[in-house]
């Protein structure tokens, strides 16, 4: 799952670094992810995993790291089955 998330970040995160090479706990905002780019990432994740991000997970912390994104997406995938 993390590889797919990193691919989404690479395509839509518009970050200054290669998301495929960052630690899964690294702060993505510190690495250049903007609030607006996190919208792109969220929409692309919805497409990639066929899920929808509900309001309650729309938090800064959700997109703060690859690890956090993976946790949220994993939960969404489980509940969407």
């Amino acid at each position: 799952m993390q590889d797919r998330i990193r691919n989404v970040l690479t395509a839509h995160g518009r970050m200054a670094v290669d998301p495929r090479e960052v630690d899964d706990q690294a702060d993505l905002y510190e690495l250049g992810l903007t609030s607006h780019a996190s919208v792109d990432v969220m929409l692309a994740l919805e497409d990639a995993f066929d899920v929808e991000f509900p309001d309650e997970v729309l938090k800064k912390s959700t997109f703060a790291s690859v690890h956090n994104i993976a946790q949220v997406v994993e939960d969404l995938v489980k509940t969407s089955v």
Partner: protein
Amino acid sequence: MITAPGEVDGRRVRVGCDVVEVEDVQHTLATFGDRYLRKVFTAGEINDCRGSNRLHRLAARFAAKEAVIKAFAEPDMSFPWHEIEVTRDGPLPLLRLSGTLAERAQHRGWLSSSLSLSHADCHAMAVVVVVCSPTESE
């Protein structure tokens, strides 16, 4: 970009601001189309942004939503974008909160807010100033 709690005449003041690249809005709109608009903006905001400077207006409204989130200064708080709406009173932009964010603002003692939007060719920005009661209700 900043949040600066302070106090004026015994009332707490909260400030939030944000700046958005217009090109980012253009890119997202080109990639995700109406889905992006519906996810982030209210029907009223989408309507207000029709016509000239559409991208700049959308960017300013996104900046306003981010500015509000920063004024709350709660990084782990959920932020339903539709619950933060920029409306207009003639030429003046106004801030309208609804749902859970309105309740949260009430608990935090938010009494009134002032919103300012601006844009240049490449960027749009927003500043929100909130006057709060001396104490929170929670």
